[in-house]
C-alpha cells in the first residue's frame, strides 16, 4: 500500500511539472500579443514609465492617429496586401489544380519534363533569387507595379500546390472521368464540373498554406517595391520602425492592425489551418 501511494505522489509531482512547463510555453506564445494589445492602449509617456503594467487610462488614441494620418499609408498598405494575397491565392489554386490534374492524368510527351521542372522548383533555394529577380524585373520594367509581387508569389507557391493536387488526383478512381466521357463530356467540362468539386478539400489546404506565406512575405516585396503607395504590410511596418522610433505603443497599434486579419482567421479556423499546414509540410 505504501508503495502505491508513493507512486501516486511521484506521478502527481511529475504531472504538476509537465502541466506547468506546457502552460508556461503556451502563455509565452501568446504573451507578446497580449502585451501589445493592452500596451497599445497606453500613451507613450505612460508606457515609458511602466512597460509591463496594465493601462490606467486606456485610450484608443494610437489607433486613431495611425488610421487617420495619410502619411503612414497604413490603409493603403493593407489594401495592397489584401489585393496581392487574394489574387495570388486565386491564381495558385487555379494553376495548381490545372497543372496538377494534367500531370497526374494526361499522357503527353512533356509530362515528365514538366513534372521534374516543378519538382526542382521545390528544391531551389528561393532566397538565391532575391537579387536576380530584381535584375530581371527591372529589365522587363515590371517591378514596382501593383501586379509585380503576384508573379513571384504564385510561382513560389505553385510547386507545393501542384504536388498536393497531383497526389490527390492519383487517389481518385479514373472510372469517374471515364463515365463522364461516355456521357459525352469533353475534357474541359469534365475538368471543371467533375474533378474540380472533388478536389475542393485539397485546394482549400493549398489556399490555407499560401494565405499566410503571401500575407507575411517580406524579402521579395522589399526588393521589388519602391513606391510607398504600393508597399505591402510587412514593408510598411519596417518603415514605421524608423518613423515611430521609440514610440512603442504606436508601433504596437500599427502591428496589431496589420496582424488582425491573420489573428482572427487563425483563431476562428485554427483546427483546419493547423491540419492544412501540417499536411502541406509533410507531403510537400
Amino acid at each position, binding site marked *: 500500500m505504501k508503495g502505491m501511494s508513493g507512486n501516486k505522489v511521484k506521478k502527481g509531482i*511529475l504531472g504538476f511539472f509537465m502541466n506547468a512547463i506546457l502552460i508556461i510555453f503556451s502563455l509565452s506564445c501568446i504573451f507578446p500579443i497580449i502585451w501589445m494589445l493592452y500596451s497599445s492602449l497606453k500613451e507613450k509617456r505612460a508606457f515609458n514609465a511602466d512597460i509591463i503594467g496594465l493601462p490606467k487610462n486606456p485610450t484608443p488614441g494610437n489607433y486613431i492617429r495611425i488610421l487617420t494620418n495619410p502619411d503612414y499609408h497604413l490603409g493603403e498598405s493593407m489594401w495592397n496586401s489584401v489585393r496581392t494575397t487574394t489574387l495570388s491565392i486565386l491564381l495558385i489554386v487555379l494553376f495548381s489544380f490545372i497543372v496538377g490534374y494534367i500531370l497526374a492524368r494526361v499522357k503527353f510527351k512533356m509530362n515528365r519534363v514538366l513534372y521534374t521542372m516543378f519538382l526542382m522548383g521545390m528544391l531551389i*533555394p528561393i532566397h538565391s533569387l532575391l*537579387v536576380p529577380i530584381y535584375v530581371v524585373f527591372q529589365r522587363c520594367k515590371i517591378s514596382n507595379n501593383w501586379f509585380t509581387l503576384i508573379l513571384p508569389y504564385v510561382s513560389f507557391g505553385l510547386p507545393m500546390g501542384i504536388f498536393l493536387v497531383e497526389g490527390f488526383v492519383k487517389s481518385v478512381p479514373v472510372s469517374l472521368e*471515364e463515365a463522364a466521357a461516355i456521357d459525352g463530356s469533353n475534357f474541359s467540362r469534365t475538368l471543371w464540373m467533375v474533378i474540380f468539386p472533388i478536389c475542393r478539400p485539397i485546394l482549400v489546404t493549398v489556399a490555407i498554406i499560401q494565405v499566410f506565406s503571401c500575407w507575411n512575405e*517580406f524579402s521579395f516585396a522589399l*526588393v521589388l517595391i519602391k513606391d510607398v503607395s504600393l508597399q505591402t504590410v510587412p514593408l510598411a511596418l519596417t518603415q514605421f520602425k524608423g518613423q515611430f522610433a521609440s514610440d512603442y505603443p504606436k508601433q504596437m497599434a500599427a502591428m496589431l492592425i496589420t496582424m488582425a486579419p491573420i489573428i482572427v482567421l487563425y483563431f476562428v479556423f485554427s483546427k483546419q*489551418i*493547423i491540419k492544412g499546414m501540417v499536411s502541406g509540410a509533410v507531403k510537400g
Partner: protein
Amino acid sequence: MLTTIKPKGKTIFLYLLIPVAMFVFTVFVPLVTAFVYSFFEWKGGPQKTFNGLENYITLLHDNTFWKAFGHNIYLVVACIIGQIGIAFVLVMMVNSKLVRFKTIHRTFGFFPSTISAVCLGLIWNMIYHNQYGIINWFLRAIGRSDLCQVWLNNTKLVMLLVTIPLIWQYIGYYMVIILSAIASIDTDIFESAELDGANGFQKALHITLPLIKNTMLVCVTLCIAGNMKAFDNIYVMTKGGPGTASMVMAMYGYQVSFNQSNMGYGSCISVAIFVLSLLVIGGTRGLIGRLTREKEA
C-alpha cells in the same frame, strides 16, 4: 492515365501555357541571369565588363561571406536542436495522460508560426530594448540592473539573441507535425510496452522515435531549408550588425547588391547561395538516409 478521353494537344497546351511560362520566367530566367552576370563587373549602371572568374575568386577570399555562411549553419544547428528537440520533448508531455488542456497548447503553440517574421522581429526588438525592453525590466525588477545592456549591440551574444525568436516561433509548428505523426501510431504498441514495464522516457526513445523517423526527417529538412534562407528577422532586428556579427548569406547578398550596388558580385553571391544551400540540404539528406539505412541493416 486517361485512355477513354484523350484531350487534344492544343487544349493541354493552352491550359499549361500561362502557369508554365510564369514559373519559368520568375524562377529559371533569374537563375540563368544571375549565372551570366556573375562573370561581369557591374555596378548597377549601364556598363558591364566581362571579368571572367574574378568575382568567384573574390568570393573565395571574402571572409564576410564565409562568416555569413557559418552563421547560417549556426542557425540550422541551433534550430534543429532547439525547435525539433524542444518540440519532441513537449510533445511527449502533451501526450501524457497527466496533462490537461491539450488542444489549447496546440492552438497557442502553433500561433507564432503564422505571424510574419517582420512582426516577430519588431516584437523581439522591443523585448531586447535597452530602456523599454522586458528583459532589462526583469533584470531591474530582480535587482540585477548591473546586467542590463543594449542586448543587440553585443557582438558575442547577437547570434544567440536573433536565434531565440526563431526557435521560439517554430517550436509549436514542429510540435504539431510530430503530434500528428504520433497520432497515427497504433496505440497497442504503447500498451504492450507499458505492460512490459517501460517508463515514459524509454517509450519515447525506443518506441516513438524510431516509429516517427520519417517525420523527423521531414522536420530536419524543413528546418535546414528554412534557416538557410534566414533574412526577414535579421533584416528587421540587426541588418546583420553590429558590424557583421549577425550577417547571414541572404542579408549579405542584399547589402552587396543594393547598398553597395555591386550587382555583378551580388549575382555571384546569389549563385553561391544557390549552390551552398543545395549542397547543405542535399548533403544532410544523403547523410541521414545513409545513417538510418545502416541502422536497419
